[in-house]
Structures are given as structure tokens and as C-alpha cells.
């Protein structure tokens, strides 16, 4: 979690902080994402001045329509990383959930809402398997979800008959709902980010995540069973991958067995750019959102600069590493302040 600026050696400051606790909590979150906002503004300004069409509705539109899928996955990934786990299966889970969505609509002729439910349910089920195996057999989630990455991909091929299938205008309607040029998935993603942050910083469950990621044994010996909490986190990650599948399929109006390949890595990249620790115990959903934005702006901007895929990947990679290095120094400074 993010820490507010605490002035040590000053009882008055402590008292004031107590009084304006609620306000300072909002400020904490704001301060936490300030650095990312600055980076984002710089990026936008840079691309705005160095390309002809960056400040255009088209750019805005394409970013807004691209990110919901990535954002939904990143929110789940944030939770998983906070408990010091990892979920490599999200891309494949997205594909198999999307496949179920396709079947439900085309073969079973289910109404959209029921199909959507089956889709997120599939994601949740995959997450449940991930979580249950991780907790029950005390396996590293890296291994379990790596297995699921393969298994769910296989399932996606089975479900879709290994073919990309057009699922018709029904699903595309999801994307047609518009407000100021922003689609329904975009709003869904924003709502999930806000809810995700509220749960993280305002509920018992969120505090459990922080505790488990920091020192699971201390949490256990304080009378809190970490197992169910961890399972829940993987279920959430799966459900969000299922939701992401809906937005993905809606955008393309089809299901694709190869959907979501490599999404797990870009999600981890976004979350890490957002300052969430891979060691667990620390993270912010809002910042993960900005992390996704940074990557998206970067990719779109570079594309408009005429950069080819290799250069884009090179730069994105450098940004990820830079973000982690910056975070390392920030954490260390904070630790030093605590020691004062």
C-alpha cells in the first residue's frame, strides 16, 4: 500500500493526520499515482508535438477501445501480485472463456446476458482451480498457473474447434453503446478499477491481501486463515479474465482460439509500472490502470512516429525496466524515512 507523507518527530502532525484520516487516504492514492500521471503527461505532450495526428479523436478512440481488456486483466493481476503470487494463465483463460461465450451464443442460442455469465463463470472456474491447487498443495502459483496457461489454451482450441469464428452482431452491440465516444467496456473497466481500489484500501479483504503478501505466517498466527483469501484472489483474477474476454470478443465480434496470447506478460508489465511489488504486500489498482495507459499511449505514439514493431517492443521493454528501477529507489528512500 501507499504510505502518506508522515512527518516524524511531530506529534502535532500525527494528530492532524488522525483528524483528516479520510481525506488523507484519498490524498495517499492521489500522491501515489502522481508520478505516473506526470510520466503520462510527458508522453502525451511528446507524441503530441512530434507527430501530426496524435491529438486526434482517432488516437483517443483507439486507446479507449484497446485498453478495457488489458485494464480488467491488470486489476486481477494486481491482486494476485499483492499476495505475492502470480497468474500466468489469464491470457489463456480469456481465450477459453471467450470460446464458451461464442458457443453459448451461436450453438446454444443463449441470450447475451446468460452467455456473458457463462463466460465469466468459466473464467472464475479456472481461477478456482488455480487457487485451490496453489493453496491445497502449497505449490508456487507460478507453476500452477503456467500449467493452466497450457491447459486453458488447449481447452480454448477444443471449444472453438481451433477456428476463429464470427459470432455476429449480437455481441458487437456491447460495443455500440456509446457515451462521448467511449464504449460500454471502457466504463466497465473504469468501474472495476474504482471498485477494485475501494476493496483494496477500504475493506477487511483488501487488508488481508496486504497482510498475506507481507508476512503470511504472521497473518496466520494472528487468527486469519490465508487459504480462502488466496483462493478468492485467484477466482477474482479468473472472473476478470472472463469479463475481459467479453470486451475482447465484442471488439472483434468473433471468438479466437489464439485470443489473449501474451496478455499475462503485458498485464504484469502494466501492474509493475504501476508500482505494485512482485514481492507482494504492496500495490495499487488505480496505478495499474495508469500503467496500462502508459503502455497504450507509448505503443500508439510510437506507431504514429512510424516506429516498427521491433522498436516499439524495445522501447516498451526499456520503460518496464526503468519503472522497476525507479520503484526500487523510491521504496528504499521510504524505508530510510521510516528509520529516522
Amino acid at each position, binding site marked *: *500500500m501507499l*504510505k*502518506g507523507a*508522515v*512527518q*516524524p*518527530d*511531530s*506529534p502535532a*502532525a*500525527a494528530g492532524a*493526520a*488522525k483528524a483528516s*484520516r*479520510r481525506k488523507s*487516504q484519498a490524498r495517499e492514492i492521489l500522491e501515489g499515482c502522481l508520478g505516473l500521471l506526470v510520466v503520462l503527461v510527458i508522453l502525451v505532450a511528446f507524441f503530441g508535438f512530434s507527430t501530426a495526428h496524435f491529438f486526434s479523436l482517432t488516437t483517443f478512440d483507439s486507446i479507449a477501445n484497446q485498453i478495457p481488456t488489458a485494464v480488467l486483466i491488470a486489476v486481477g493481476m494486481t491482486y494476485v501480485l499483492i499476495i505475492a503470487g502470480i497468474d500466468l494463465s489469464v491470457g489463456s483463460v480469456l481465450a477459453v472463456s471467450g470460446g464458451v461465450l461464442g458457443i453459448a451464443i451461436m450453438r446454444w442460442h443463449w441470450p447475451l446476458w446468460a452467455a456473458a455469465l457463462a463466460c465469466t463463470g468459466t473464467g472464475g472456474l479456472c481461477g478456482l482451480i488455480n487457487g485451490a491447487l496453489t493453496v491445497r498443495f502449497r505449490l508456487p502459483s507460478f507453476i500452477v498457473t503456467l500449467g493452466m496457461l497450457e491447459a486453458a489454451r488447449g481447452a480454448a482450441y477444443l471449444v472453438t474447434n481451433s477456428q476463429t469464428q464470427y459470432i455476429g452482431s449480437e455481441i458487437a452491440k456491447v460495443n455500440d453503446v456509446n457515451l462521448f465516444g467511449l464504449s460500454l467496456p471502457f466504463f466497465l473497466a473504469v468501474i472495476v478499477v474504482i471498485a477494485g481500489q475501494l476493496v483494496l484500501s*477500504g*475493506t*477487511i*479483504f*483488501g*487488508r*488481508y491481501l*496486504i*497482510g498475506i503478501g*507481507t*508476512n503470511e*505466517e*504472521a*497473518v*496466520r*498466527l*494472528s*487468527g*486469519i*486463515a490465508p487459504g480462502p483469501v488466496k483462493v478468492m484472489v485467484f477466482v477474482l483474477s479468473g472472473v476478470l479474465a472472463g469479463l475481459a474476454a467479453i470486451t475482447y470478443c465484442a471488439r472483434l465480434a468473433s471468438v479466437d482460439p489464439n485470443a489473449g496470447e501474451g496478455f499475462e506478460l503485458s498485464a504484469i508489465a502494466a501492474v509493475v509500472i504501476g508500482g505494485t511489488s512482485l514481492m507482494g*504486500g*504492496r500495490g495499487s489498482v488505480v496505478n495499474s490502470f495508469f500503467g496500462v495507459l502508459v503502455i497504450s499511449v507509448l505503443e500508439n505514439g510510437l506507431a504514429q512516429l512510424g516506429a516498427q514493431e521491433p522498436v516499439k517492443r524495445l522501447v516498451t521493454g526499456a520503460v518496464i525496466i526503468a519503472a522497476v528501477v525507479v520503484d526500487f529507489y523510491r521504496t528504499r528512500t521510504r*524505508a530510510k524515512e*521510516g*528509520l*529516522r
Partner: protein
Amino acid sequence: MAPLLQTEGLTKSYAGPVLSDVSFELQPGEVHALVGENGAGKSTFCGIVAGLRTPDSGRMWLQGRPYAPANKRVAEAHGVRIVLQELNLIETLSVSENLFFDQLPHTLGGWISRASLREAARNALGRVGLSELDPDAPVSGLGIGQKQLVEIAAGLARQCRLLILDEPTAALTPADAERLFLQIQKLKDAGVGIIYISHHLEEVLRLADRVSVLRDGRRVATRPRGELTADEMIRLMVGRALDDTAARAEKRSAGPVLLEVQNLSAPPRVREVSFALHRGEILGFAGLMGAGRTETVRALFGADPRQTGKILLDGRDVTAGLHSPTDAVRLGIGFLTEDRKSQGLLLDKPVRLNISLAQLNGDLRGPAGALRRQREVAAAQTWVDRLAIRCASIEQIAGSLSGGNQQKAVLARWLYRNCQVLICDEPTRGIDVGAKSEIYRLLDQFAREGKGVLVVSSDLKELLALCDRIAVISAGRLVETFERGKWTEDQIMSAAFSEMKV
């Protein structure tokens, strides 16, 4: 002839003095035993000789030459070796690789010569009676006794003139121990000097040519074997003036039985332990390192599985509903762990989070699982004030507090949880004197409120000062319980050693 090893005025302090002005002498071919209570400074002394630690002051000579090893490697170059009580084996490697890890036989190209390694390993293992053990077997599959033997074999396999054995028989069966004694005799005959640390006094009397007793970091006596009995050793080990804090504690009045434990077993360390804790009472668990005290309270708390045992709280049988720490906390039991850093604290989180942890699923749970933030802040502030935890604010990172204040923060967690039974495992380990007495005061106050405290401590002085009764655990059994006023330190130590006799 110059002694093999001579030390003069060795002194070492960490938080407080651990070793003060220790002079010591070892002749070639001599077994010189070191005995003393937990924390008397035995391991520190040997660590200095073996180059694991450097003394704050004092000098050493090896065969008349000044000797000041900067590290273990230098000491080994001088032929000084230590076999530690804790196992230093690499679990994933084979027995032979572990035996010769720092001097693996290899060919010119850097390839390990398996054949000669195996050969050397067989030799080394044969000396400790492990000739049937496959040198290629992974260490992870060995039992603790075998591991200990492998560790000893590694020490014996090398050329040395001074060998330090720190509790070598702690995990050995009597037969294995006999084999070890045989090897010790051989080394002696070859002129190797041996420093031998053990809690097994019978063993010491059998093996040692001379015995030195350490107490509170000082060498209080050195006697030839013939002039010492086990009882005398115990008396020398504890024979300090009684601390005045013991006299100061006013009598608390014990109420009805709060917690009753019958036949608690959790093999291999806990065997049929039964005891009762009264309201308003502080009950201490004394015993030697590794006697099973921590294991006993962990099994009681549900942190480790137990095999048998019946647990009653306020006369009600709660055995069926107590299988995890979650159950224990719900029933009103709190547990201040032995190692607060790895098992107690959220080190890089604010004090506030550390205090509130056990109440998250209690007092702090709001509607729909919301966290009652304001209540949390208020409670944290209250407990910081009440326990006088020295921190800049409740937002200060717990890891940046002093040991004493860290411990108070964990204590605050359980006081805030309002538990009825508080289990404290080594509550003042690594804490300065001031914070110690504050924690004693808090525990005393807690007991006076009609609750019960269970204290596990390796510091007998602490138990004598704090407890109404002291139960002694030896080799996993609760052997005797002493009442305040009717105990002597000698009796308690004798009880602690009672199951250890070979």
C-alpha cells in the same frame, strides 16, 4: 609445552554483554567441556575461536602464536574446525558433495572426479558408523540424526588440530553417540584438542578431561573431571545472586482454572504434556533449548497439528473446535511468537497495521466487510499510548522501531484482541533491559485482570521474576511443576536435565 589454545580476556557484546573477560586453555589431546545455561555464552565463545565472530576485545594464541582469525576460512587454515549445532547442509546436494563441498576433488578441466569423491566420502562416513549410507544419496532424505552425523563426519574428515563440537549428540541415538565418542577418543590419541559443548552432563563427565562452567558470559570455574559431579555443575551454572526483580513481584491471587491441557502430544517433540493455567496466573515453561517448549505451545495454539490432547477452556471442552490459529484466536487465545520478525510483524508496514491485525475479523469488520478505518486509527493510537510504544506516529514502519517497541506492538495486537489466554514465547528475546521490565509489568497487569499468561523462556531469571508457577519441560515431557517460593534454581535446572541423562 605451549597449550594448543589459550585465550585471554575475550569479551563480546551485542545488545548487552554476552561474553565477559573469558580466559581459557586447551591442551593438545585434551577434551575440554564447556557447560552453562542457555545464553551463558558457550556458542559465542566457540564462534570466536572458530572465526565465525570477532571479539570486541581479548587475545588468543594457538600453540603459542598469536591467533586472530578474521573468518571461518582463516580458522580452518589454522586447523581449527567447528561442527555446529544447527545443520549447515545443502539439502539438494548429495551426502558426498556436502562432505567435501569446499574441496571437491576435481580434474584439470574442473570436472568433479566422482570416484575419488565417493571413496573419500565412504571413508568419512565409515568413521561415524554410516558406512551403509550411499554417498550419492541426497541429504534431504536423511533423518535429523543422520544429518548431524554427516555434519560431524565432514568435520572429522579434515585435517585439524582443534575441533569444536557444539551439542553434537542433541539429535543422536545412544548407539550413534557411542560411535561418536569412539571417534573423539581416536582424535584425542592423535593429539587433537577438542572443545565439547553439551547439555548432557553425564556425557561431559565421561568424556571431558576438564570442565569449564560459563555463567552470564563469564567463566566461573574450571575443574578436572574427577573433582566435579553433575549436581555441582548445575549449582555452578545457576549460582548467581537472586535478582531483586524476583522479590519485587507482589503475589497475585490465582482464580479458577482458565485453561486445562491434558495429554497433549505432537511427536516427536511433545509427549503427553498436561497442565492447568489459572485465571490471574503467570505460568512459566522452563527447559533447555530444543526441549519442546515452543512445540508444546504451538500445538496448543493450533499452529502445528497435534496427535492427542484434550483442551478445556473455563471447564468447557474445546478440543474439537481448536485445530487452527483461527480457532484459537476465536476462543480467546493469543500467541506472541518466538521470532517476532518472521512470525509476528508486518515489518515494512505501519505500526497501525500491526496492532490491528488480529482484530480485522473482529472489532474492525464493518458492514459488507468494510474496514472501520477510523476505529482502527483510534485503537492503534490508544494502544500506542497505553503501552508507551515509542514511535513518531502510528504510521511509522514497524521494522524501524527498536526491538522492545516492536515487541510491544505485537503485544498490543493481542491486548487489543482482548484475549483471555496469552501465550508468550521468549517475550523479551533481544530486548533491552528497560523494555524488558515494561513487558514484565504489562504481563503482570494482564494477569491481574483475571486472565492467564503462559510464558516460555530460556532465561530462567525471567521466569523466576515473572511466574507464579514454573513447569519444567525436558525432552518433550513436562517433568515437574514448581510453586513460587518453593523453588530453587538448582531444582529447576536439575528437572530440566532430568530426561537428558544418557
